[in-house]
């Protein structure tokens, strides 16, 4: 039979930062700031990132495009204050707007999917 696995269409990364949410929020939400750390590509081009939804200083959703013709992906940052005055940051990158689950056959080669 089959068991449900997450389709590999979402990347989630979490980290803690020393700076307070208000400061991290500015680094995320101000376009000029984003251009210095988030969007540059190795070849000098930039990823296209635009604010879709902003709930300062807690949640910021960006549309994310690798190239001009690509469909928009969604990158959402969630910020929470830590007990030591820093920020706990969660980043969720969805390849499509609506995540889903589809069962994959148990006998299929899904090692990479499981690793997700």
């Amino acid at each position, binding site marked *: 039979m089959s068991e449900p696995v997450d389709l590999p269409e979402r990347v989630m990364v979490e980290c803690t930062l020393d700076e307070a949410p208000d*400061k991290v929020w500015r680094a995320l939400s101000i376009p000029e700031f984003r251009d210095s750390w988030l969007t540059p590509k190795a070849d000098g081009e930039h990823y296209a990132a635009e604010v879709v939804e902003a709930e300062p200083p807690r949640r910021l959703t960006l549309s994310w495009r690798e190239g001009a013709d690509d469909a928009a992906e969604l990158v959402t940052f969630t910020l929470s204050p830590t007990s030591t005055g820093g920020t706990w940051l969660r980043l969720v990158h969805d390849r499509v707007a609506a995540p889903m689950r589809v069962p994959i056959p148990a006998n299929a080669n899904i090692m990479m999917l499981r690793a997700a």
Partner: protein
Amino acid sequence: MEADIFKALADPNRRAMLERLAAGELNATALRQGFDISQPALSQHLAVLRAAGLINERREGRHVHYAVNPDGMAPLTDWLARYQAFWPERLGRLRDFLKEMDQ
């Protein structure tokens, strides 16, 4: 190819078909059971799934059997591997940027 896969998966009916096929190979008649769609619509959905490389078809006499193509998800796992490396690197840059900010 990657875009084809996401287009194919964007439709709830096609997702449900893929889900059903994941449990085992089926012919079109068996696959259609429980779906409120016409035979031509089903054929259309199957064609989209096949074009995206998500399912394989196997002909046996007059019947065509459909099954999930296990390698069909490979373009998605490429995307995943890329961004699983990308985001920790960018968050490292953010960490550095925050140290320099407001100075």
